[in-house]
């Protein structure tokens, strides 16, 4: 048994992997993070992961993917846990297991490229906690990953560069082998090379051939196959990968497996065993034990499971990554366009995908494809309402298209009639200037009222508004991550007299008794509770509700456009104000950017509908607006 433990030098890890693979053995990575993201909208709480930690530690995985991807954002936005605290607490319970992250290269854990100094600072701060750095770029554009590679190498951690995988005529073995060569030239051979099959695309035969091709060219580079079970056939692909020389494969805990994440670990083990491949260092009893421990927790996550149950063989057509399936379906339900999903997924999305260059449908490229397809279908006019991110894609801000460029009419639709000039002026990669980190730290300190830690600054640089909200939340509500999902996700309130007898995430027992909630004469609701034998009372003012949403205006899209032309700028969709880019009294020209809004993770500029002076700004950074809500007013210049 050659278990690779946390702290093993990178060269030794690669050496062990080569040897083990030659002996017909392989390792397993438990992709808990990806499972949470794909099948539970990233909502699996730290409480649950800590519950599973001892048996997962005992199981002897190559690594546990527990951070990265969208989880950093969801951690602070919806689970109110500091991603660093999470890693610290996990490390206490799992001293030997290597922790793995999923890093989006220059886009880090967000949706658009960050300046070099932010990338390096972020990697340096996470590196002490993260042993395996799975890094990708949705255009497979190597320069976008170099800064991460370098910082990971400097920190002595394992680089796992990714070949994002997809299907189609351009996605040949020759292409991927050449791409792998480009990557390895930068990283060297002491890495694990990941085939990142985020959609779960291709057949077992296709994956087998790809691994074989890579192994023939780079026999000394260990291959890590990552897939999704969206079509129900990832075990087939995993088996094919290992039979052709992959050293590590991804799978998840059976009792939490769903439809879009990884398949069950022991099913993988059993299938491969019949072919004569044994999992290295894996304690199968401990794997099973984890599932038994987790089984009773799953019920609390039911609200976050996909609205549509069942495997989706159609993924081979629409190619949505497993990690985006749940959130896409959720948007369809919330947006009331679930009935149009077949059209969006089966017709429009594949069309958009081809039109936009058949690149890899993964963050943030998958969001661009998805929002474009949705807006193409819902708005009735294709590319009629392009997002700011689509604009940036066409401008080449994310990097060059890997195979071919979109046709000219799309450029014209997105960039306007004078698109050639726009492209000339604004197009192409331009190095994003470094941010003044000292100044950012100062801004954050001003916002918080105290000196932020480096960890806080990292989170702030990723998601400025949400990070500040989170820090303020923590001051008010404390360490809510100690709560179990049964309380955290409770729907409908508790019963009067109900005893919440729970263990916090440290395993300590607590007792909360819910008392009556009488309403006072002034309409105040008083919630009585007994916490660990001590009574407390909380009062709620009648009008007070959590999360402020601006007043709703019932306006049609046309009305909003007309108002804009008259200087009354309204929100064109439901979204959040990222930034107001003008000040009251400032002169603007028609078409000037006055604000930036964000919806469905995509940022869109709000433009001045007429020339004039900004008079009233009725919203601020961080506000969530409904369509038609007032943003600001422009008065005609006298």
């Amino acid at each position, binding site marked *: 048994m050659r278990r690779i433990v946390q702290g093993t030098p990178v060269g030794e890890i690669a050496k062990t992997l080569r040897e083990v693979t030659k002996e017909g053995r392989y390792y397993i990575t438990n992709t808990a993070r990806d499972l949470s993201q794909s099948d539970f909208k990233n*909502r699996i709480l730290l409480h649950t992961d800590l519950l599973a930690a001892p048996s997962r530690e005992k199981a002897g995985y190559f690594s546990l993917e527990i951070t990265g991807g969208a989880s950093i954002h969801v951690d602070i936005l*919806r*689970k*109110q846990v500091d991603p660093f605290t999470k890693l610290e607490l996990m490390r206490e319970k799992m001293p030997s297991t290597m922790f793995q992250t999923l890093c989006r290269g220059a886009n880090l854990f967000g949706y658009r490229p960050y300046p070099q100094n932010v990338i390096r600072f972020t990697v340096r701060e996470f590196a002490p906690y993260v042993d395996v750095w799975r890094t990708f770029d949705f255009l497979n554009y190597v320069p976008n990953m170099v800064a991460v590679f370098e910082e990971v190498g400097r920190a002595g951690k394992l680089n796992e560069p990714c070949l994002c995988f997809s299907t189609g005529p351009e996605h040949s073995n020759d292409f991927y082998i050449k791409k792998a060569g480009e990557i390895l030239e930068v990283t060297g051979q002491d890495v694990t090379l990941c085939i990142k099959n985020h959609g779960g695309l291709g057949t077992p035969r296709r994956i087998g051939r790809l691994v074989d091709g890579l192994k023939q060219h780079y026999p000394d580079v260990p291959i890590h196959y990552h897939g999704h079970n969206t079509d129900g056939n990832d075990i087939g692909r995993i088996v094919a990968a290992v039979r052709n020389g992959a050293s590590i494969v991804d799978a998840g805990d059976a009792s939490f497996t769903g439809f879009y994440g990884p398949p069950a670990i022991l099913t993988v083990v059993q299938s491969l065993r019949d072919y004569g491949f044994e999992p290295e260092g894996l304690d199968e009893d401990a794997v099973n034990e984890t599932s038994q421990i987790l089984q009773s927790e799953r019920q609390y996550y039911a609200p976050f499971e996909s609205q549509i149950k069942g495997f989706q063989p159609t993924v081979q057509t629409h190619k949505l990554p497993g990690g985006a399936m749940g959130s896409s379906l959720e948007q369809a339900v919330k947006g009331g366009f679930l009935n149009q999903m077949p059209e969006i997924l089966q017709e429009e999305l594949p069309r958009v995908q081809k039109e936009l260059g058949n690149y890899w449908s993964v963050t943030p490229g998958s969001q661009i494809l998805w929002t474009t397809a949705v807006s193409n279908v819902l708005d009735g006019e294709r590319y009629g309402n392009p997002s700011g991110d689509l604009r940036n894609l066409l401008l080449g801000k994310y990097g060059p298209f890997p195979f071919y460029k979109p046709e000219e009419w799309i450029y014209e639709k997105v960039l306007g009639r004078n698109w050639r000039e726009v492209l000339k002026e604004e197009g192409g990669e331009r190095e994003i200037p470094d941010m003044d980190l000292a100044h950012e730290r100062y801004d954050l300190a001003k916002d918080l009222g105290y000196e932020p830690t480096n960890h806080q600054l990292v989170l702030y640089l990723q998601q400025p508004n949400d990070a500040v909200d989170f820090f303020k*939340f923590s001051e*008010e*509500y*404390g*360490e*809510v991550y*100690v*709560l179990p999902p049964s*309380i*955290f*996700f*409770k*729907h*409908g*309130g*508790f019963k009067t007299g109900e005893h*919440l007898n729970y263990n916090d995430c440290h395993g300590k027992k607590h007792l*909360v008794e*819910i008392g009556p*909630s009488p309403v006072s004469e002034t309409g105040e*609701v008083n*919630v009585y*509770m007994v*916490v*660990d034998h*001590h009574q*407390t009372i*909380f009062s*709620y003012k009648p009008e007070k*509700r*959590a*999360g402020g949403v601006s007043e709703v205006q019932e306006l049609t899209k046309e009305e909003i456009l007309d108002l804009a032309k008259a200087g009354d700028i309204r929100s064109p969709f439901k979204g959040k104000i990222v930034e107001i880019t003008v000040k009251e009294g400032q002169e603007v020209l028609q078409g000037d950017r006055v604000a930036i809004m964000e919806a469905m993770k995509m940022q869109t500029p709000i433009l001045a509908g007429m020339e004039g002076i900004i008079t009233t700004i009725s919203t601020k950074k961080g506000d969530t607006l409904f369509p038609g809500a007032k943003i600001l007013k422009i008065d005609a210049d006298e």
Partner: protein
Amino acid sequence: MKTRILIANRGEIALRVIRAVQELGFEAVAVYETPDEMSRHILTADDAIWIGDGPRCDYLNIQKMVTAAKKAKAVAIHPGYGFLAENPLFAKVCEEEGIIFIGPHSKTVAELGNKVVARQIMAEAGIPMVPGTKNLSQGRKGIDEALGFAAQHGYPVMLKATSGGGGRGIRRINSDEEMHAQLPMARSEALAAFNDDSVYLEKLVLNPRHVEVQVLADNFGKTLHLGTRDCSIQRRNQKLIEMAPSHIQNKELLDTICDTAVKAAKAANYLNAGTVEFLIDQDDNFYFLEINTRIQVEHTVTEMITGIDIVRNQINIALGHPLTLEQKDVQIRGYAIEVRINAEDPKNDFMPEGGKKVTVYRSTGGFGVRLDGMAYQGYTVPEEYDSLLVKLTVHGYTWEETVGRLARCLNNFAIRGPKTTIPFYKNVVVEKDFISGHFDTSYIETHPFIFHYDEEASEGGKLARFIAEIHHSKENPFAK
């Protein structure tokens, strides 16, 4: 009618005395100023008498106290510590009014309360003393005397108020310039604080250990000691952590100190419970410091290691009973440590948190644990009085066991609302010099990192608010 004893004090010491009185089968009569009308000592006593609106003036009013005692038909008054406890006039008025003062004779209180007279008595009895002066003369002459003393013994020296005590009215002088500047200030301060502007000088013993001996003396010529206490961990001469017995390994030295304490008490014709304080320098020389003529805050540690109820003995002695104990009956077993859990912010110069309400109060318990408390959930830290919430005293068979128990108990405590000294103590009990018993009066200054801790967040309360939010909103509004 049962024998009644009036307690001329408030707070935890009033409760402590009430317990002893009631255990003896007597009745305890409390007194209170208006701000204390809801206080625990009022509810615990058998009777309570209002003495005025206060604050802090009626507890100091001798006449009101005596009137209250007469009204309550109390035969004796226990003064506690602070307030009137070491006021010789109070003891004298009691004697004149035929009320038993539970403490030494007023003459003893007066003599020992005057540091210069006390030094004289001790010098005559051959008790080793730090070199010092008599009361300095007024004006220019006094400064010359002071400079002369400093020239002879060298700086630094301590400038002390003759009527001071309990660490108050003491300042360190490092140079002639400082002497010129400080002497007049010390005088005016002493006048304001003790109504007596006499001051004197003592040679400063650098980084000494502060060791004191508890003594008991009855009317029949018997004087006993109950072993030593170490109160070296002080901040600006205010004791923070006290323990018994002294952790000094030199047993012969400690025996000598105890015998010297008994000799000192006898020299002063001491009656009842008292404390003889000594300084021990780095070379194991010891010097008489003073005799405290009252029950002390830290008496609990001595009670824990000896099993002897000092307050009960105080009352019995005062009522004219002979001590039934012999010196050989006093057996020291194990170690005891007491910490004063105050509603204070150690990081902000131990600023009291007056006016804050205790929203959560959870205390500790278990083997070897003693609590002398005042606070409870809903208690408001008074702005008028001291900020002591509870004294935590732990007892263990070995030093190591005792420190471990103290750490455990501090972790068990959950007090929310005011800031407290608990997180500060938590840092001390894991600090290696403290654990190994290496500390002297410079401990706090030389271990500044014990002030580095995160505020005890009221995590429980915050979480409860979060759960209430989930309950009230019918779902977690932050997890949507």
